[in-house]
C-alpha cells in the first residue's frame, strides 16, 4: 500500500513538472501570449518616429524634437536591461528626425575600409557614422538643408551608402569619402532603391528619378502626388510605388526597362512605408492594411480596415505589425492565412498607448523572442519570452540540462517531503542534503563570483590607471584585452557586454585567430595556454588587480582592462 502511495505521488509530481513544459510547447505558435513586458522607458517630451534597432547586445533608439526646450534629438544606446550605454545628441536637428538608423558591419571594398558603424541621417542635413560601442563619430558628411535635411532611409550598395538628401542623393564610400552628389527633386521621408548599378528615388512632386551608374539622370512622372518611401523591386525589373494623393493613394508598377507605368490599385490616403514579404507586398494607409500578391502581375488580394501611416514591420518571420495611428494607439498584428488572405490576428495595447509611427523591432535568440515597441510619445518597451539576461553561451543543450536538473531537484525535494510525512527523518535528510548539493552546484558560479566581489577590494581598481596613451580613443569605455607573452604583446579593445574574463578572452582569441587551451578543474575553467604558449602558467589581471578565482567566475565591468600575463 505504501509502495502504491509512493508510486502515485511520484507520477503526480512528474505530471506537475511536465505539464508546464508541454503547455509551453503548445503555446509556441501563439505569438503574444508568452511575451511579457520587461521594462518601459519614457524619453519624456521628445517623440520617436522610427523603429529601434537591435545589433548584437545593444539597442539603438532615436528620439526627435521640434524644439530643444522639449529635449535634444538624440541617438541612445541601451543594453537589454534598459540601461543607457551612451547617447549622441544633435541640438541643431530640430525638424522631424525620422530617418531610420542603419547598422553596417566592418568591411572593405574597392573604395576603402570601414569599421562597424551606425549610420545616422539628421534633419539638419548632417549624416554621421557612429561607433556602435561608444557613439564616437567615425566620420560625418554635411548635406543640403532647405527647411529640413535628411528624413529618409539611406541605402547600402556594396561598399557605398546612398543618402537621400533634401534635394537629391549623395553617394559616399563607407569610409566617408564622397563619390558623387546629384541634384534631383525635393524629397521627404523618401529613400533610394539600388537596381542594376543605378538608383531610383521619388520626390514630393510625384516624380521618380533614376541616376545611372555613370550619373546620367532620367525622370518618370508617376502622378500628381508625393512619393515618400523606397520603391520596391518586383521581378527584378519592375518597381512598385505607392503614390500619395490629397485624398487617396495609388499603387503604380513601373517597368524600368520600358519606362511604362501601370496603376495597380487605388488605396486610402496617407500611405505608410510598404514592405515586401515573399511574393506579397503589404501596404497601409489611413483606411486599410492591404495585401498585394506580386507573384505575377501585382494585384490586391484583400484589405483589412486599419489606420497606419508609419513603418510596417515583419517580425518573427510571419507576423506583420503596424502601428495604429490614432490617439488610442496600439498595434495591429496581421498574418497571411494558408488561403493567402491577410487577417488581423491580434492587437497589442499598453497603458500609455498614443499615436504610433515607428515600427517594431523583433528578434528571436536561442528560442527567446525579444520585441521593442515605441510610440510617438517616446515610450519604449522591451518585451520578451522567458526573460533572461543575454548570455552568449546559452544554447539548447544548457536548456535541457536545466530542465532535467529542475526535474530532478523537484523529485528529490518532493521525496524529502514524503519521507518527512512518513517520519523517516534519516531518509528525508538524505534527500534534503542531496537537493541542497544540487542547488549549490548549479548556483556555484554565481556564488563564487558574488563572494569574490564581496571579499576583494575592487573599488580601487580603475581601468584609467593602466590606460595606455597608445591605445585608440575608440577603446575608451570598452573592454580591452592584453596578452603579455614573454616574447611579445597583443592588444585588442573595443569590446562590450562580456560578463566574465573567460567569455571576453574566448571572444577575443577567436576573433584574432589565437588558440586558447582551457581545461576543466574542480575549481572552474583553467586557461592552460594561449597561442600554444603555456610557460609556467598564465595569470590574469583586471584593471591591474590579480585575479583570485577562475576566469570564468571573474565578473567584468563594461570598461575593464584585462591583462593576461605569461609566467
Amino acid at each position, binding site marked *: 500500500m505504501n509502495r502504491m502511495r509512493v508510486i502515485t505521488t511520484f507520477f503526480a509530481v512528474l505530471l506537475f513538472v511536465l505539464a508546464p513544459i508541454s503547455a509551453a510547447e503548445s503555446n509556441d505558435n501563439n505569438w503574444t501570449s508568452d511575451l511579457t513586458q520587461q521594462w518601459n522607458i519614457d524619453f519624456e517630451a521628445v517623440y520617436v518616429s522610427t523603429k529601434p534597432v537591435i545589433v548584437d547586445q545593444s539597442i539603438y533608439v532615436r528620439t526627435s524634437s521640434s524644439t530643444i526646450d522639449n529635449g535634444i534629438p538624440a541617438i541612445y544606446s541601451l543594453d537589454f536591461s534598459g540601461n543607457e550605454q551612451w547617447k549622441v545628441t544633435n541640438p541643431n536637428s530640430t525638424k522631424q528626425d525620422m530617418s531610420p538608423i542603419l547598422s553596417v558591419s566592418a568591411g572593405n571594398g574597392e573604395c576603402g575600409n570601414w569599421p562597424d558603424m551606425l549610420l545616422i541621417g539628421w534633419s539638419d542635413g548632417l549624416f554621421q557614422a557612429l561607433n556602435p560601442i561608444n557613439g564616437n563619430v567615425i566620420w560625418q558628411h554635411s548635406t543640403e538643408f532647405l527647411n529640413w535635411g535628411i528624413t529618409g532611409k539611406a541605402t547600402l550598395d556594396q561598399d557605398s551608402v546612398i543618402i537621400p538628401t533634401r534635394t537629391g542623393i549623395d553617394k559616399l564610400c563607407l569610409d566617408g569619402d564622397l563619390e558623387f552628389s546629384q541634384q534631383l527633386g525635393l524629397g521627404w521621408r523618401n529613400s533610394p532603391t539600388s537596381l542594376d548599378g543605378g538608383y531610383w528615388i521619388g520626390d514630393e512632386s510625384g516624380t521618380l528619378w533614376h541616376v545611372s551608374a555613370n550619373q546620367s539622370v532620367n525622370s518618370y512622372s508617376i502622378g500628381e502626388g508625393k512619393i515618400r518611401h523606397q520603391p520596391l523591386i518586383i521581378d527584378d525589373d519592375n518597381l512598385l510605388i505607392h503614390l500619395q494623393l490629397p485624398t487617396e493613394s495609388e499603387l503604380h508598377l513601373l517597368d524600368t526597362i520600358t519606362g511604362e507605368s501601370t496603376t495597380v490599385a487605388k488605396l486610402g490616403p496617407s500611405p505608410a512605408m510598404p514592405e515586401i514579404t515573399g511574393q506579397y507586398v503589404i501596404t497601409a494607409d489611413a483606411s486599410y492594411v492591404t495585401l498585394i500578391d506580386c507573384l505575377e502581375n501585382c494585384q490586391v488580394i484583400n484589405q483589412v480596415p486599419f489606420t497606419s501611416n508609419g513603418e510596417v514591420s515583419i517580425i518573427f518571420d510571419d507576423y506583420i505589425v503596424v502601428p495604429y495611428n490614432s490617439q488610442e494607439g496600439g498595434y495591429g498584428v496581421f498574418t497571411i492565412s494558408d488561403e493567402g488572405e491577410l487577417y488581423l490576428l491580434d492587437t497589442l495595447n499598453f497603458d500609455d498607448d498614443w499615436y504610433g509611427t515607428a515600427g517594431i523591432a523583433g528578434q528571436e535568440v536561442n528560442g527567446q523572442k525579444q520585441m521593442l515597441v515605441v510610440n510617438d510619445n517616446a515610450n519604449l518597451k522591451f518585451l520578451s519570452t522567458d526573460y533572461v539576461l543575454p548570455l552568449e553561451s546559452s544554447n539548447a543543450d544548457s536548456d535541457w540540462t536545466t530542465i532535467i536538473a529542475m526535474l530532478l531537484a523537484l523529485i528529490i525535494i518532493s521525496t524529502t517531503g514524503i519521507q518527512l510525512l512518513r517520519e523517516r527523518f534519516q531518509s528525508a535528510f538524505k534527500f534534503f542534503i542531496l537537493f541542497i*548539493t544540487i542547488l549549490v552546484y548549479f548556483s556555484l558560479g554565481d556564488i*563564487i563570483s558574488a563572494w569574490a566581489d564581496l571579499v576583494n577590494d575592487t573599488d580601487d581598481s580603475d581601468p584609467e590607471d593602466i590606460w595606455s596613451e597608445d591605445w585608440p580613443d575608440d577603446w575608451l569605455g570598452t573592454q580591452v584585452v592584453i596578452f603579455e607573452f614573454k616574447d611579445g604583446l597583443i592588444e585588442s579593445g573595443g569590446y562590450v557586454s562580456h560578463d566574465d574574463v573567460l567569455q571576453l578572452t574566448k571572444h577575443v582569441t577567436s576573433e584574432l585567430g589565437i588558440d586558447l587551451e582551457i581545461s576543466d578543474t*574542480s*575549481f572552474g575553467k*583553467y*586557461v592552460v595556454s594561449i597561442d600554444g604558449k603555456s610557460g609556467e602558467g598564465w595569470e590574469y589581471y583586471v584593471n591591474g588587480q590579480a585575479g*583570485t578565482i577562475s576566469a570564468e567566475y571573474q565578473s567584468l565591468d563594461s570598461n575593464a582592462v584585462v591583462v593576461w600575463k605569461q609566467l
Partner: protein
Amino acid sequence: MFQSYGVHGPVLGPVAGLVIDIVLLGLAFWMLASPDMKKISNILTFVTLIFGISLARILMSPLPNIQPVTVACLIIGAQLGARRGVAFAVLVTMISNFILGDGIWTIYQAIGWSIVAIIGAQSKLIIDNKLQLGKLYFLGIASAFLFDFITSLSVIGTVNAGEFIAYLINGIPYDVVHALGNVTMAAWFGIWFSSVITQYQSMEEIEQTVVDGYVIGS
C-alpha cells in the same frame, strides 16, 4: 592566483615528481607493513577499496570540489586504523592524481587526507560495530575545511601573507561545497561503505578460522 598556481600550486618537473611518488609510495608500504596485511584477502580488499575510491574521485572530478576521498578516509581510518588509513589516503591520492594531474599539491593532498584518516581513527566513529552518522557529518564538515587549508599551504613560498589570506578567503565557497559534498556522501554511502569493510573483515575472520581449524585438525 588560481590561474598562476593551477589548482593547488606549481606543476613539478619529471624528476621532482618521481621523487615525490617514490617517497609517498614508500610511506604507504611502510604503513601497510603490519602482520594482518600479509593475508592475500586483506590485501585484495584493500586494493579494491583504493581503486574503487580513486575511480570515484576521478569520475567526480568535473563536479566542483566534491571529494569522495575525505569521507572514505574517515571511515577507513575508523574501521581499519590509522596506519591503513594513512596508506589508503596516500595511495588514493597518487593513483587518482596520475589521471587528474600530478604536482606539488599531491604531497599536500596526501598529507591532508592522511590527517583526516588519523582523525577518523581517533574519533570513535564506530561504536559497537555501528557507524555514528551524526559524528561522521560533523567530522565531514570539519575535515573539508582542514583538508582544503592543508592543500592551500602548497602555494606558500610563491605568495606573500596577504595574498595567501586572500587565497584562503576566496576559496571559502569551495570549502563549503566540499563540506556539503562530504555530508551528502556520508548520508548516502556512509553506512553502506562501513558495512562493506566490516563484511570483508568478517569473511576474512571466518576464513582464517576455517584454515586454522583445518591445520589444527590435520
